């Protein structure tokens, strides 16, 4: 199993390269549908993902995580930037080339309830892409579908059922089976467990890990449950308002977050241990600014405790070696933050 230290493995080519990805949604008004502004859902992201690793993507709701994930799969048309997958620029592929490329590039959706067509039986849901993309005939496709069911821990007997006859966890397994069925190399997991029960979450996370091991999968793992992202990821990128503000190997990030936002995120995360209740933690005040008109300068300055005047004027770049951070005044590297610092009984 490949693990971290990507930079120490020179010569290994990234599986996925994101360069300057921007996705602006036009805000349209009236019948003329004139664009009166843009929601800058993703506003300039560079990220390399190497074969076999899991890159976690965290950030608060609406910061553009899903949009980024969808953009990689060309479910959204990019405003700017390029997605290189296996060394090919996806933007330059024809429709049919793209369609065949999809068997290497898959996605697991956030909501297991709405991502399965309620009027199709599982067998149809699983075999349809197999027939279309892998060109299998009916019998082969059904055979493959039942293998997949076993792989994700479901009985092939239930292939004839409808999505509503399954629990949320089982549905998410079906979604996973569907994505894995095409034998992809990269799977974008868009919050695959946040809609699920706590007791089921662990099942799914374990399944994903196991699949990664057996099929040498690469994951881009999106989530805002810090616990699960931490559990899954080798590296973690923290997003805020369409930008990556910090990118570091998992352990380092949790041990010493450098961006004030990362720090706030870690502090706000309620630790399931009553002994570790914060007496007086730093809760972020203010609301998330609108992505339609992100603040000038550093986007976080409106909520940042350490913001100075430069933060309002100049946008910080994402810099650093193994631990990248975009902040004019990053938290000192040596002061370990978080983790029950000021715990009380």
């Amino acid at each position: 199993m490949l693990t971290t230290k990507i930079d120490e493995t020179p010569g290994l080519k990234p599986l996925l390269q994101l360069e300057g990805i921007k996705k602006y949604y036009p805000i349209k008004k009236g019948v003329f549908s004139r664009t009166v502004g843009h929601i800058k859902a993703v506003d300039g992201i560079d990220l390399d993902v190497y074969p076999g690793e899991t890159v976690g993507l965290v950030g608060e709701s609406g910061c553009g995580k899903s949009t980024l994930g969808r953009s990689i799969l060309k479910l959204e048309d990019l405003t700017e930037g390029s997605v290189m997958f296996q060394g090919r620029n996806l933007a330059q592929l024809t429709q049919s080339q793209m369609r065949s490329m999809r068997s290497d590039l898959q996605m697991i959706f956030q909501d297991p309830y709405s991502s399965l067509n309620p009027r199709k039986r599982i067998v149809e849901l699983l075999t349809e892409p197999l027939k279309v993309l892998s060109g299998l005939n009916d019998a082969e496709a059904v055979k493959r579908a039942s293998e997949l069911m076993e792989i994700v821990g479901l009985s092939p007997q239930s292939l004839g059922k409808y999505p509503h006859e399954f629990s949320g966890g089982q549905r998410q397994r079906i979604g996973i089976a569907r994505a894995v069925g095409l034998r992809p190399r990269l799977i974008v997991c868009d919050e695959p467990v946040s809609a699920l029960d706590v007791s089921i979450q662990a099942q799914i996370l374990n399944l994903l890990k196991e699949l990664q091991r057996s099929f040498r999968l690469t994951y881009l793992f999106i989530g805002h449950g810090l616990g699960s992202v931490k559990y899954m990821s080798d590296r973690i990128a923290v997003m805020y308002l369409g930008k990556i503000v910090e990118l570091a190997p998992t352990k380092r990030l949790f041990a010493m977050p450098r961006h004030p936002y990362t720090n706030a995120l870690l502090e706000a995360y309620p630790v399931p241990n009553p002994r570790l209740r914060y007496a007086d933690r730093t809760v972020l005040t203010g609301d998330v600014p609108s992505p339609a008109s992100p603040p000038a300068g550093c986007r976080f300055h409106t909520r940042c405790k350490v913001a100075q005047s430069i933060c309002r004027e100049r946008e910080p770049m994402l810099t650093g070696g193994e631990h990248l951070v975009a902040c004019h005044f990053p938290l000192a590297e040596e002061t370990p933050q978080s983790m029950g610092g000021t715990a009380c009984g």
Partner: protein
Amino acid sequence: MVNYIVRRIMIAIPVLLGVTFLNFILINLAPGDPVDMYVNPDVSEADKQVRREALGLNDPFMIRYVKWLANLVQGDLGHSFSSFQPVVQLIGERLMPTLILMGCAIAFGYLISIPIGIYCAVKANSKFDYFMSAGSFLGVSIPSFFLGLGLIYVFGVMVGILPTGGMNTVGGDGGFWDQALHLVLPTVTLGTSIAGGMVRYVRSSVLEVLNQDYLRTARAKGIREFFVVNKHALKNALIPVITIAGLDIPILIGGAVITESIFQWNGMGQLTIQAILSRDFPLLMGVNMLAALTVLAANLWSDVMYAVVDPRIKYS
């Protein structure tokens, strides 16, 4: 909002132009000649020719259309072929009666269907609900010529308390009450068919809203069920209802032909049918253009009403 409306009107212009041209083609394609049909045995071919010339029917097709358009720009819709009055004036005379009848019919239809629809939804699947469902289908499926005639017979002839037709008492001074009395039967006839469909729409729309979380919030505040339904649910439920209403209006303005003729209510429907039956081209063009205008206006109206009822929708 004003901006939005102005832009909508701008976009309506090419649509209208298209409609008028297609109308012109249609009208000219329709069988029957406005002059030939004057089969007064005493009218000779030569006289028909005089009439053709006077009506401008001898010009080629495109010339006639361009002339018509040129006049339109100056606000002139031409003269009727049969009554020789300006089309604008003819339509003007008929518009008010139509609007009055439509207004009353819509008001009547909605006044009975909205409460019934709400109550059906609140008491969904009860006896009342089933009974009213059946009633609403009856309303939809009873032809208006039949309902109208029945009403005339019962209230005009047998009971004799309501006038059987016309817009006011012959020779009367046409006071408000007089006209109101004459409005009753046509309003009921037309309103019944409106109400029939509306009950269903209101019912399903309220039913949908009744499952919304914010109604539970309202109940949790201790608000009486009556207000929960009639304040919190109703306004939301009206949003889809407005769309339907928007679709209703043009149909009513152009299409209450039967009700109008049964009750001698001289509105647009009567005018339209007369124009068609006499192949009165200029009048038809005028009437059709008004119909197109109402469709576009009604679309705009429902969009604007949407924004009025639903603050989430904003036009700028």
